[in-house]
């Protein structure tokens, strides 16, 4: 293993993936490296399969081809029990928070500890309160998830995600649907948790402005593969039209405004040859 590889927590090589229920190819020949201890932002237009990529890294989906190495283990080839071993080292913050609705905030955060450790309830309580303190919700420990606002639910879920002190934390659209204040809070939390806990963070998002302020590395995915990667500065200075369109949020460009269709004139005039012009 070379030193460059050792510095990467996740190495994805030549990944092909298509959902079993559709012929639509999501990834073709995608390769990607996630550096250890850094915040990597994965960006791309909606519907490009960014969440799918996180599920592939977590072993919830299996690729048709390619390798996904997490700390030297090829995730798609692991047996169930080995995969579960590795999953204890990673954690994922879901877009909805995915708190268990039948448990209080406290029990939600204690849940992974009770499942995977033999710690006494007193120690679990200490850990849970520390994690809640880190996200600023120590006072909300007795509330049920239904009583939390969207931003608080996401912070509680974040406390649960760091309960077992994982090495990797994957954020699925952490800023989606947040008001500016809670968005600022979450941006700050991602940064501070990454630095103070020595985590490796992967943030999947399309909120460009927020993530560029904290990311160490930015990866842009489009057209089934990585189209650009580098530090935020490198990408901001890039003159690639696609990167430019994406970072400045222009409606039309290399990523077309229109979903593939025959041209409007052809469709209205009923021209039959329209199909050959699709795309």
């Amino acid at each position: 293993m070379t030193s460059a590889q050792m510095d990467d927590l996740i190495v994805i090589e030549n990944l092909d993936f298509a959902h079993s229920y559709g012929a639509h190819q999501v990834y073709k020949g995608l390769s990607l490296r996630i550096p250890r201890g850094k915040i990597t932002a994965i960006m791309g237009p909606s519907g490009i399969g960014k969440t799918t990529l996180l599920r592939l890294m977590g072993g919830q989906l299996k690729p048709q081809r390619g390798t996904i190495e997490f700390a030297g283990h090829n995730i798609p080839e692991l047996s169930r029990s080995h995969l579960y071993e590795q999953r204890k080292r990673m954690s994922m913050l879901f877009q909805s928070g995915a708190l268990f609705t039948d448990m209080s905030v406290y029990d939600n955060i204690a849940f992974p500890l009770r499942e995977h450790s033999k710690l006494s309830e007193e120690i679990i309580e200490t850990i849970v309160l520390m994690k809640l303190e880190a996200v600023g919700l120590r006072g909300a420990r007795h509330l049920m998830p239904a009583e939390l606002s969207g931003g608080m639910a996401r912070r509680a879920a974040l406390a649960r995600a760091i309960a077992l002190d994982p090495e990797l934390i994957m954020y699925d659209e952490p800023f989606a649907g947040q008001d500016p204040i809670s968005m600022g809070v979450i941006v700050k939390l991602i940064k501070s948790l990454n630095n103070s806990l020595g985590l490796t963070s992967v943030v999947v998002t399309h909120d460009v402005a927020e993530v560029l302020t904290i990311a160490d590395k930015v990866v842009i995915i489009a057209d089934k593969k990585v189209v650009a990667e580098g530090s935020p500065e490198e990408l901001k200075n890039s003159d690639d039209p696609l990167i430019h369109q994406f970072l400045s949020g222009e409606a039309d460009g290399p990523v077309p405004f229109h979903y593939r269709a025959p041209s409007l004139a052809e469709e209205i005039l009923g021209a039959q040859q329209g199909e050959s012009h699709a795309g």
Partner: protein
Amino acid sequence: MLDRIAGLGKAVLDSIAGAGQAMVMLLRALIGKPQLRKSWPLLMQQMYSVGVLSLIIIVVSGLFIGMVLGLQGYTILVDFGAEQSLGPMVALSLLRELGPVVTALLFAGRAGSALTAEIGLMKATEQLSSLEMMAVDPLRRVISPRFWAGFYSMPLLALIFSAVGIYGGYLVGVRWLGVDDGAFWSVMQANVEWGQDILNGIIKSLVFAFVVTWIALHKGYHCVPTSVGISRATTSTVVTASLAVLGLDFVLTALMFG
């Protein structure tokens, strides 16, 4: 035309794939070393929500069905001067057929639909995925306790249903219509056999419990995680489970009493 044939083929393939998925789900949920310390509280919690909360509907329906049986049975039997046989008539209809079948149908409507909707929503809100990412197997944690809770509680509910039903028949037949009290009970005792009637009823009930709970869990676990998908899955649970119960009841009756 060709599209229709293709559609038919797809429907057949989909249903076979669905059955396979359901089978794999159940096997993975049930096989593995039991962890009593963790699963006991989960089982109790589910026994409460699946079993105890179904008690009211079971008791009320049992009472009314027993009362109707008493009334109908009496008006038929009295023409032949055979109203003394009201006791065994009510008891046998309940223990052999109505108890297990009606309980299973009510259970599918009350608890089965709730199980499907609950699991479907857990899937839609990514709770199942988050369990998996926390290295906790949702099949062991979510599916397995619910399956056992359904499997254990339905036969108990069916027995309660039959007992309450017999009491309803007694109220109408003896208290209201004047059938002799002693004859009602003693003829019933003489005609109801443990193995042939009660045990067979319990076996039926166990089979229905297995099938209804399995269908409800499968429909929830493999539903399309959207509001339309969950509503379809819930409807499909009630319809499929009810038809399965009625069909199986015929087969079991033919085997046991045919």
